[in-house]
């Protein structure tokens, strides 16, 4: 059952959430933008989802900016570090 608003068929949450995701990857068409905007005006669930998408993107940016990645997870092992350091020293030796 489609919900109507002044004769216009409003898009469903399923359609809106898909558009909200695509808005992060491509410019939406005017029709899509209006559809999404109208839907978001009346839908708390999709407002929440849109906010979550933004939070996910921000978190990814912070992973790449290295803030978020320094938690708990294991780093390089001591052996790996030693091996890499040795490779570096060899290369430096070749250079000079």
């Amino acid at each position, binding site marked *: *059952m489609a919900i109507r608003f002044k004769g216009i068929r409003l898009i*469903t*949450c*399923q*359609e809106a*959430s*898909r558009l909200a*995701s*695509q808005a*992060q*990857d*491509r410019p939406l068409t005017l029709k899509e933008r209006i559809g999404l905007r109208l839907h978001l005006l009346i839908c*708390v*669930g*999709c407002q*929440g*989802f849109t*906010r*979550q*998408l933004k*939070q*996910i*993107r921000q*978190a*990814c*940016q912070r*992973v*790449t900016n*290295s803030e*978020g*990645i*320094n*938690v*708990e*997870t*294991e*780093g*390089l*092992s001591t052996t*790996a*570090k030693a*091996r*890499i*350091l040795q*490779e*570096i*020293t060899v*290369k*430096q030796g070749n*250079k000079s």
Partner: protein
Amino acid sequence: MSKELPRCDPAAWLTDHGDYLYRFALLQLRDEAAAEDAVQETLLAALGAWERFSGQSTVRTWLTGILKHKILDLFRKRAKEPQYTPLIDNPEAELSRLEQALFDTTGHWAHKPSAWNDPEASLDQQRFWTAFLYCLEHLAPSQARVFHLRELDGLSTEDICKELKITSTNCWVMLYRARLGLQQCLEHRWGDGHSI
């Protein structure tokens, strides 16, 4: 006067940034040995290219940029090997299976997305990052690749399509599928649904 450039000190790069680079590589490569190799290659390449470091970014950002290229190269190589065929043929069908679980028959959320605490304002940021990294690591490989390229490596969808030889529609569908997967996972581990 121009800012003084940091010294070329690869041993310090390893100490200061090695763990970070390794974790960044591991997130995408999901293979410890491959991630170690990628870090090593990155540092060696950086040593060779040090003259080109302009000092406009931090050393870490510069090293991460090199690492991203190494990861891309590795995936290109992997794509030619028969055991790595991570991309699914019909992402739309896979998405629609998930949508059936998340939305009711009228297209409304079966469970409304909750309002997440802002991890930055929150007192337990640690718990957020643990949840977030867990969810990122547990994305299905087929979705993870596209999502990493877009959100961690910062490629445009056009570039992703070229890289993975997929259509832009499939790319959008796969990104959406990945985001829904992450959203669901975080809903459990960070949002209202968490049960710690």
